[in-house]
């Protein structure tokens, strides 16, 4: 695997809690601005963002820094996962041979005192073969051993069947998505808004394979509050679940009522030009609104771009393409940053766009190297 490049971090969105976003003026940042990361120049390798605070994990010392409603820092961490209910960290014990400990903290504790809950967890199993590191289990909430994951609600530690061979796991407000080693997608949990993708609104107690995606190999999965997304190895996006804020880039009633066109929910035309038209069918009748999409639907990006990474907030979605562009749509994107559907830093400084990752969260977007996109909450 290629060495991780150092990238610049940018952010935008709601920062009413004093999260380290850009200039930090006011409570909202509308376009990506360089991040005022705690300790300028810290080599941040992972960011996990919740609504009111953000956790940064640095290389080297394995420091976790918290910014926003809760402020603090702690060492010896190799991964962190932030949610409003719980802050979860993965800490390596001192010295070789010491196990890895999973700790769940109350966010307000700022990692001081004692965690609410802690447990030693087995290490990841080494896999021989091409791209060894890539087949290892992904970041939290999936544990390194891929035999379990962390939930913000009790029970915190949830086992996964070893037969699942989990590679990545994402949690929505009421559901979970899992990507396995073979590129198959499983979902379970609540399904009232079609977020499970099995074609019904029924809940699923156990991981269930998404039949509609059979035969396709997925490379990424992302879960929003009540919607789900996956990206295939070929760069296609499949999306399903709730669309009440246009988070599926489908026509939505609420945006039409607010005076926004459905075009703003979906971004750009095929040739890349901005679309400003009222939602309408060929006969001039209003296009049908789609509130819920219970099956995966293929989503075409403008310019026929291929997606490589995707991430979801509670009611919005962001995708990064192979050529390093960022597309966002859904709630707050249409309302607060209307018309924003492309990484504006591309226009400012060309080279920067190809070196920036994107880690949006809350309404915050943290950019780094346009290789990964991470939304969380709204």
């Amino acid at each position, binding site marked *: 695997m290629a060495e991780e490049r150092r990238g610049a971090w940018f952010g935008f969105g709601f920062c009413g*809690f004093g999260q380290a976003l850009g200039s930090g003026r006011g409570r*909202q940042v509308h376009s990506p601005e360089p991040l005022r990361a705690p300790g300028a120049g810290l080599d941040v390798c992972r960011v996990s963002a919740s609504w009111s*605070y953000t956790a940064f994990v640095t290389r080297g010392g394995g420091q976790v820094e918290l910014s926003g409603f*809760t402020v603090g820092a702690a060492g010896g961490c190799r991964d962190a996962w932030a949610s409003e209910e719980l802050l979860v960290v993965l800490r390596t014990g001192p010295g070789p041979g010491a196990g890895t400990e999973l700790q769940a903290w109350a*966010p307000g504790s700022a990692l001081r005192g004692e965690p609410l809950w802690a447990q030693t967890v087995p290490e990841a199993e080494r896999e021989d073969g091409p791209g060894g590191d890539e087949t290892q289990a992904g970041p939290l909430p999936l544990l390194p051993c891929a035999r379990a994951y962390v939930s913000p609600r009790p029970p915190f530690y949830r086992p996964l069947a070893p037969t699942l061979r989990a590679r990545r796991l994402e949690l929505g*407000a009421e559901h979970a998505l899992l990507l396995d080693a073979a590129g198959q997608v499983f979902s379970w949990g609540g399904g009232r808004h079609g977020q499970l993708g099995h074609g019904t609104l029924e809940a699923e107690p156990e991981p269930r394979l998404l039949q509609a995606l059979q035969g396709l190999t997925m490379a990424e999965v992302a879960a929003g509050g009540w919607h789900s997304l996956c990206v295939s190895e070929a760069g296609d996006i499949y999306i399903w679940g709730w669309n009440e804020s246009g988070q599926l880039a489908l026509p939505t009633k609420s945006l039409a009522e607010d005076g926004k066109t459905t075009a703003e929910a979906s971004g750009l035309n095929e040739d890349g030009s901005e679309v400003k038209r009222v939602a309408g069918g060929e006969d001039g009748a209003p296009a049908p609104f789609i509130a819920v999409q219970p099956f995966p639907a293929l989503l075409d990006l403008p310019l026929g771009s291929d997606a490589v990474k995707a991430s979801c907030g509670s009611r919005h979605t962001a995708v990064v393409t192979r050529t390093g562009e960022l597309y966002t749509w859904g709630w707050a994107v249409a309302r607060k940053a209307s018309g924003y559907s492309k990484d504006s830093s591309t226009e400012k400084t060309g080279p920067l766009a190809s070196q920036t990752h994107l880690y949006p969260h809350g309404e915050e977007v943290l950019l780094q190297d346009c290789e990964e996109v991470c939304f969380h909450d709204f």
Partner: protein
Amino acid sequence: MAGPDALWEALWALLPRTKEELKLELGEKVEGSVVMLLQEAAELFYGDKRQECLQTCEALLDYSWEKLNTGPWQHVDKDWRRVFSFSCLLKAVCLCAPPGDAASVAAALKACDMGLLMGAAILGDILLKVTAVLQKHLPSGKRPAPDPSQEPLGIKKARNDHVPIPDVTSERTVPRLHCPSLQYFREHFLDPGRPVILEGVADHWPCMRKWSLEYIQEIAGCRTVPVEVGSRYTDEEWSQTLMTVDEFISKYVRNEPKDIGYLAQHQLFDQIPELKQDISIPDYCCLGSGEEEEITINAWFGPQGTISPLHQDPQQNFLAQVGAAQNIGLPPPPGPATRGLAALCTFKH
């Protein structure tokens, strides 16, 4: 119409004087970050920073709205609904700051209605009081002028007899009684779980003579209510949406509506207490095993042709009908399915 300053003063008279007197009293379920943001909103509010307060309220509304939409409604913690109500309250009052205009007052009313529909009671039902003040201050142009050519609901019934009335043989019809005694009702219908039509019980209710489309619009036209769109709630195209009573009547009741819209199973009388004064709770309701507080009053308001598919309610029901006739089918006794069947109380206007 009194000026925006009069409205502002009237609203402030309802609110606690200072930030300290605004008691949030939220339990553990509400995260510290939300409590902090709500306190900040209150600070901005009492510090006259209206725009920042509105922005903060929007963030609170969005976050708490998501909590209200997580999991089944019965399991949503009441404190989240209170957070939602507090945010609606501050937002509504901020919107009415002078210089106000009709659009702001309408937006403030909508914010209050959202708090009433989805929130929970706070500060002694302050949202109801604020709503009453707002309604008084709506400019007269906002209200539809009563149309003299419109007839009261009752007379319409005789002219619109196109709905086929099913032919029902006498053994299968529900018995009709005129004002039976409480004991008789309990012995013969409540305890054995048998349906009955009670006549004469609601003759004296004010709604019998007062209710018409114009009256409803005058009292509640600008209020936001939930409407079900689609023929039956088991259909695919069925959906729920919010609109004002004016919009509902003009789109789904008057003017030969294209689609079916139904204001169904909504606790309208809690939201609009002025309408509650036009009805009474029949004495028979007190015979139930539950507490009087457990009695819920729902309203159904719709045009001809609205259908509710066969269903079972967990509670015993009294149905009072104002206006055109309604056909109601009941599955035959005996069996567990018939427990809790409605005792019907229809009457002519």
